[in-house]
């Protein structure tokens, strides 16, 4: 399974993601430079977290115009696997690969903490290793993670099972208290209609080693790897 991690100016979880794929999961992994037009033949593209273009204007708003995004959009339309983490999620929204938008966290503060999310759909390539309803402990670190979608989009997301993760309590309840950033219906991650593009606010690459507190993030990366194996 060949992974590509995109480097935008201001990306800062690019290396962390690379490290997990390459050093912990031993997958061939490449950095993809935002100015290039080359996806280096990878099977899965990851847009990492960080502050592309300083998050100026709106998070992700400028990065989506990067030359490489044209290739990524085409790749996604052909069914290629694309995962956007945090800032990567914001870029996917701005680029129109996913629907909705991000607002500032409800308390107007940056939030860095380990939270719980519930797997709402384990049928897509990114979650197939998770049990339905499984609760994952994964860190978040963002200022603009307050997901918003107008009613018609929200209906569509629900109808098509595109809501993949929701913020929940440690025991898996979905309530207002667990909704750290104020997202509509506690949404922490969504996919496109065909399930090959996933955006999520939590950072699975920060939950990949017991030494750092949690390994739940590995479920996502392993799902991708096993999905690839399953279709070969």
């Amino acid at each position: 399974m060949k992974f590509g991690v995109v480097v935008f100016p201001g990306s800062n979880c690019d290396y962390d993601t690379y490290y997990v794929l390459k050093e912990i999961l031993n997958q061939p992994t490449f950095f993809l430079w935002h100015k290039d037009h080359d996806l280096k033949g990878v099977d899965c593209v990851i847009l990492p977290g960080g502050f592309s273009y300083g998050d100026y204007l709106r998070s992700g708003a400028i990065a989506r115009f990067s030359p490489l995004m044209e290739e990524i959009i085409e790749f996604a339309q052909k069914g290629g696997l694309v995962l956007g983490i945090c800032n990567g999620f914001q870029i996917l929204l701005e680029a129109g690969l996913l629907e909705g938008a991000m607002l500032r966290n409800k308390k107007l503060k940056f939030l860095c903490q380990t939270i719980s999310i519930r797997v709402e759909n384990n049928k897509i390539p990114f979650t197939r290793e998770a049990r339905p309803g499984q609760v994952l402990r994964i860190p978040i670190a963002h200022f603009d993670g307050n997901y918003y979608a107008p009613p018609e989009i929200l209906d569509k997301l629900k109808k098509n099972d595109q809501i993949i993760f929701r913020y929940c309590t440690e025991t898996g309840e979905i309530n207002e208290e667990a909704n750290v950033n104020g997202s509509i219906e506690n949404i922490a991650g969504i996919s496109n209609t065909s399930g090959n593009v996933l955006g999520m606010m939590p950072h699975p690459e920060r939950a990949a080693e017991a030494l750092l507190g949690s390994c739940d993030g590995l479920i996502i990366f392993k799902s991708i790897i096993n999905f690839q194996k399953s279709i070969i």
Partner: protein
Amino acid sequence: MKVRVLVRLKNGVLDPQGQTVRHALHVLGYHQIKDVRQGKVFEIELEGIDQETALRLIPEIADKVLANPIIETFSWDFLD
């Protein structure tokens, strides 16, 4: 040539920043404040361009870059 573009959240989209400002003003005793919506303003200086081109260009830029049409609307005018 100078133009000003205002970008604001659509009605119905929650505005946590505006809410917080309103709340802060209430705490300070300004109870006359019924609502606050916060948006962005861009002051743009253009060069080598006539009014007509600007009339085409500015909405294009605002729509494509400055505002996110899912949550925001924009308006603009010439400054001088």
